[in-house]
């Protein structure tokens, strides 16, 4: 396997891991925030919301998954271009749709299917490009 193929493969595996962590983290955060309720934009309102988020288990679980996402993201970006990793992450929408069908038995509209198909086609196109077009270590600080 050539260096470029190996780089593409390991980056896409890391992106898949990144997507799983991000989706799970978002779901946990959404569940936590639904438990907390509407946030009021005022100093006491924001303070109260902050205090409630600190005490919420789902929020902490969400944060853990998002830390996992950040580590996977940093590793993927250290290997490949940001413009390669970022759109590939959109594959998460396809996974969300599949989960909605398989786990939640939801019906998915034709429009959503078209959207998911376009995302997959886009990810496929990006995935065919050279993963790294910059030289690591040459960026000025």
């Amino acid at each position: 396997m050539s260096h470029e193929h190996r780089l593409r493969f390991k980056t896409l595996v890391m992106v898949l891991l990144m997507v799983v962590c991000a989706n799970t983290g978002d779901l946990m955060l959404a569940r936590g925030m639904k438990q907390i309720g509407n946030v009021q934009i005022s100093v006491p309102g924001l303070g109260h919301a902050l205090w409630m988020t600190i005490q919420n288990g789902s929020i902490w679980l969400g944060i853990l998954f998002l830390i996992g996402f950040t580590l996977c993201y940093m590793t993927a970006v250290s290997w490949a271009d940001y413009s390669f990793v970022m759109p590939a992450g959109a594959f998460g929408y396809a996974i969300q749709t599949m989960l909605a069908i398989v786990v939640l038995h939801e019906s998915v509209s034709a429009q959503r299917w078209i959207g998911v198909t376009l995302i997959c086609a886009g990810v496929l196109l990006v995935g065919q490009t050279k993963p790294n077009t910059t030289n690591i270590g040459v960026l000025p600080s």
Partner: protein
Amino acid sequence: MTRVIPMLIFFVLCNTGGEIAMSYGVKQVGEPESFRPMALLRFVWGAVKNRWLWAAIPLLAASFYSLLILFSWAPVSVVIPASASNYILGTFGAKYLLKEGVSVKRWMGVILVCIGVMLVLFTGRV
């Protein structure tokens, strides 16, 4: 939706800015040598010493907190796909700030992803 849209714009700007700053910092740090704990610690330590990663933190923190607020205001099916403009803004950032070679094929892929995400958005319960 009057308060959701400005918050979404704030979220997208902070998120894209934070990700670009983080990518710039990580490119300077370099890739982890392996997945052994010491190698990963060295990678994290290199990241901790990088000022671009420190610049990314407040931006990502602001995007994180605005995302939490958005979750309490609107359904997940609206909030997550609405950040589709991240892809276009992020690709411009990658091209002009990170100096990445964004080929026509990559642009086509990004645009397809963006349209796809938008289509998914419009099937959401707004």
